[in-house]
């Protein structure tokens, strides 16, 4: 660019900073999407896996705002860094607080939603309460006196229906008014009786530490400290603040008082007063929601509910396995076409290899996950927005509790049967960080679809297809079933162990809102799916691409010129001696032999030899070792890597008869067969348990926020795989099997 655009002479004022807060299920995301449209941007908070979404919001009359989507929360008290994000958004430890806070509340369950609104009002920030779902509230016989509520709260109150875009103009006007109002130094919200002294003591410490806070901010911060500190995982809290909070709590406890209860009850007493002043509900409002009641009578019914549950989960499974398949095939074909084109255009050599087998293969390795990620998140978004996801957790919680997990861990674990990548991303629906980590570290043990080609090949090689167990059961089917059973047992066992060791903690309670059933909005679903796919491509995709290139280099270099020259000679000889089909076949054979020789010579080939002593007790030799290295790109790559090692060519798939034959014939140096039923079983057990998938590691890195967790996962799964295969092979030999 040569000429920089000139700045407009009248510089527009900096946009207002508006925070959008609300309980989960208040319709906050719908409102955010309606206000910012497609212009929203998604980023991360460093170190934690909470999306940071912002977007420009035109307020009208020339005013612009930057709208920040505060993560959905029931309260501004926080025990974890994730929960603290919402607190920081309205009550930042450093930097300026937002100019205006908009709180979205579900008008049909106003009391509970007002608890968060009250906490926002306590901060003294200009506040606008967006009363969402007013249509449902009216239908339920709930009438809200807007002015009375605004008067009582000291905030603007605007009725809206976010899903239909109603009331947004009034919301803009209210935000403009609040932003334009003089910075009111409103007195802090009152606290009752005995608590007042306790709060004052914490405020005194805060006054020393943060002399510039307004009285409202100080009051809000003191209440936050009293409710949050003590058993939290927060970092960066001043020691003096912790001390005074602990002391105040200890004193209250000694006097037989419960400060938490007094503060929370005091808040609800104020909310009850607001509701009394502004809300009238006729009798049938109390009865709840007839539609949701009727649906729940079926969907959580002991028989019908379980059937529907099984059906929905089956559909999810079907989507991940069957519906994604044509799309994956299309992507693979497209990448193959691009590779073919690049190979045809570029001269033979390292550059061609880098582009074809490194970069293009890497892009393929990334994009190939998109169909399953997109489909899973369409499912999750629809289930979540409709309210059924909470029922899934509710129905299955009893089962998950047994291994120390939450009902919400079920969908990610089930998705692990298809692919760990979308499954790990799906753990975001789990609120507690520890629960989420346990789930994401255990679920790669679920037998994903990429392991299937490995099982298929090994079973075909080591077991005869007509072999029967007890006369009826096909031995292949029994072995396959056993591998899946092993994967489920290993997953649940790993979760239980992780929960009792590295991620120890009190068993997480289930405190789960069952929101009313609602029709999911297409826009919300599309936006959620788009965000997840983009986040995968950008954050995990780059790691996957990089590792693919490294693996390609390991398998390709160093190259031996001698081998190249030797095979060039063989080709020349063939061209002299043969012609037509025979020549073609001979040339293909020479290509395969050259690949094999080069692989043997490569870093991966040498590494295979190097690790052979470690693999021998499992019944593997260096050639399988090379396959294991190659399969780090993706488990099914084992098949094509074995194809190269045995000189069949890399196009060999698990159905390839020559590859099966070659593996059956393969011998150890002592002349015994390499692939026996026992070494085959050991290899399959290894694949069930090993973290043979760089993409999983990359996505766990992305979702856990640090390299620590994927490395832990790689470590424990590798040990588990080694021990599992060792027990299988050595134990089998002891029992006299071969």
């Amino acid at each position, binding site marked *: 660019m040569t000429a920089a655009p000139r700045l407009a002479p009248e510089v527009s004022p900096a946009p207002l900073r508006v925070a959008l807060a609300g309980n989960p299920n208040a319709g906050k995301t719908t409102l955010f999407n309606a206000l910012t449209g497609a212009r929203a941007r998604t980023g991360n908070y460093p170190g934690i896996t909470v999306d940071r979404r912002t977007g420009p919001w035109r307020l009208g009359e020339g005013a612009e705002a930057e709208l920040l989507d505060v993560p959905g929360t*029931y*309260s501004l*008290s926080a*025990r974890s860094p994730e929960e603290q994000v919402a607190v920081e958004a309205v009550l930042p430890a450093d930097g300026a607080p937002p100019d205006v806070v908009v709180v979205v509340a579900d008008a*049909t*369950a*106003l*009391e*509970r939603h007002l*608890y968060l609104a009250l906490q926002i009002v306590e901060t003294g920030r200009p506040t606008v309460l967006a009363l969402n779902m007013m249509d449902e509230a009216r239908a339920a016989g709930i009438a809200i006196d807007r002015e009375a509520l605004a008067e009582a709260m000291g905030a603007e109150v605007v009725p809206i229906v976010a899903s239909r875009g109603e009331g947004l103009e009034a919301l803009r006007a209210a935000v403009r008014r609040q932003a334009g109002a003089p910075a009111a130094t409103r007195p802090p919200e009152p606290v009752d009786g005995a608590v007042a002294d306790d709060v004052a003591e914490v405020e005194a410490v805060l006054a020393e530490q943060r002399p510039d806070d307004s009285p409202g901010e100080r009051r809000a911060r003191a209440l936050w400290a009293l*409710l949050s500190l*003590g*058993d939290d995982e927060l970092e960066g809290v001043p020691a003096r603040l912790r001390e005074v909070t602990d002391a105040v709590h200890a004193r209250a406890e000694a006097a037989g008082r419960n400060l*938490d*209860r007094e503060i*929370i*009850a005091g808040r*609800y007493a104020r909310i009850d007063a607001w509701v009394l002043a502004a809300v009238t509900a006729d009798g049938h*409002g*109390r009865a*709840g929601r007839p539609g*949701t009641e009727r649906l*729940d*009578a079926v969907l*959580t*019914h*002991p*028989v019908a*509910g*379980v059937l529907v549950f099984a059906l929905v989960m089956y559909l999810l499974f079907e989507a991940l396995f069957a519906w994604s398949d044509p799309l994956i095939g299309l992507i693979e074909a497209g990448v193959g076409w691009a590779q073919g084109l690049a190979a045809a255009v570029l001269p033979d050599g390292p550059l061609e290899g880098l582009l074809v087998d490194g970069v293009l293969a890497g892009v393929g390795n990334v994009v190939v996950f998109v169909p399953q990620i997109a489909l899973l998140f369409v499912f999750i978004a629809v289930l979540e927005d409709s309210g059924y996801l*909470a029922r899934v*957790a*509710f*129905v299955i*919680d*009893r*089962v998950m*509790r047994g291994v120390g997990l939450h009902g919400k861990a079920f969908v990610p674990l089930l998705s692990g049967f298809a692919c760990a990548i979308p499954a790990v991303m799906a753990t975001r629906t789990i609120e507690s960080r520890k629960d989420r980590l346990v789930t994401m570290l255990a679920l790669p043990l679920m037998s994903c679809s990429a392991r299937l080609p490995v099982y298929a090949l090994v079973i075909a090689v080591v077991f005869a297809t007509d072999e029967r167990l007890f006369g009826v059961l096909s031995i292949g089917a029994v072995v396959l079933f056993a591998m899946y059973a092993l994967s489920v047992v290993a997953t649940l066992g790993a979760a239980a162990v992780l929960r009792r060791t590295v991620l120890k903690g*009190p068993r997480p*309670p*289930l*405190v*789960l*809102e*069952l*929101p*009313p059933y609602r029709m999911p909005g297409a826009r919300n679903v599309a936006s959620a799916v788009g965000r997840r796919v983009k986040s995968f491509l950008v954050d995990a995709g780059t790691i996957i691409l990089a590792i693919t290139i490294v693996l390609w280099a390991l398998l390709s270099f160093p190259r031996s010129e001698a081998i190249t020259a030797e095979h060039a000679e063989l080709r020349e000889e063939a061209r002299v001696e043969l012609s037509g089909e025979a020549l073609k076949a001979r040339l293909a054979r020479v290509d395969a032999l050259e690949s094999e020789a080069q692989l043997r010579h490569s870093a991966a080939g040498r590494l295979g030899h190097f690790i052979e002593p470690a693999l021998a007790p499992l019944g593997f030799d260096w050639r399988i070792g090379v396959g294991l290295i190659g399969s780090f790109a993706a488990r099914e790559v084992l098949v094509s890597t074995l194809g190269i090692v045995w000189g069949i060519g890399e196009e060999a798939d698990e159905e390839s008869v020559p590859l099966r034959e070659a593996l059956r014939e393969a011998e150890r140096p002592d002349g015994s067969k390499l692939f026996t039923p026992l070494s085959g079983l050991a290899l399959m057990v290894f694949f069930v348990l090993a973290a043979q998938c760089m993409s999983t590691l990359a996505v766990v890195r992305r979702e856990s926020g640090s390299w620590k967790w994927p490395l832990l996962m790689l470590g424990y799964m590798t040990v588990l795989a080694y021990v599992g295969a060792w027990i299988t092979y050595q134990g089998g030999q002891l029992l006299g099997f071969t």
Partner: protein
Amino acid sequence: MPDEPPLPTLADLPIGAEGTVVDVRCPRPVARRLMEMGVLPGTRVRVLRVAPLGDPIVLQVRRYSLSIRRREAADIVLSDVREAATEPEPGAKGATERGLSRASERPAS
């Protein structure tokens, strides 16, 4: 149980029964979370339904539905327990009878 607590807990209630919260005796993080979500002493709660496998349960509290496990429910002490106005659930009697005698509210119609 040899020595039963003097007051019924939420875990004792059959479907449809309701009571007034007297105390939330869960560990602090859970108690705080429950109270912040509106389950406070003085709040009226009703058992709406039970999961197919018997646990967790669903409460109606402050106009919304909240699901918790029986283990937590057993730490929520109630008074003024009142059985369901209609369709009493089989297999869920006993514990609530004491509470019933204490019930001061008349069934609303």
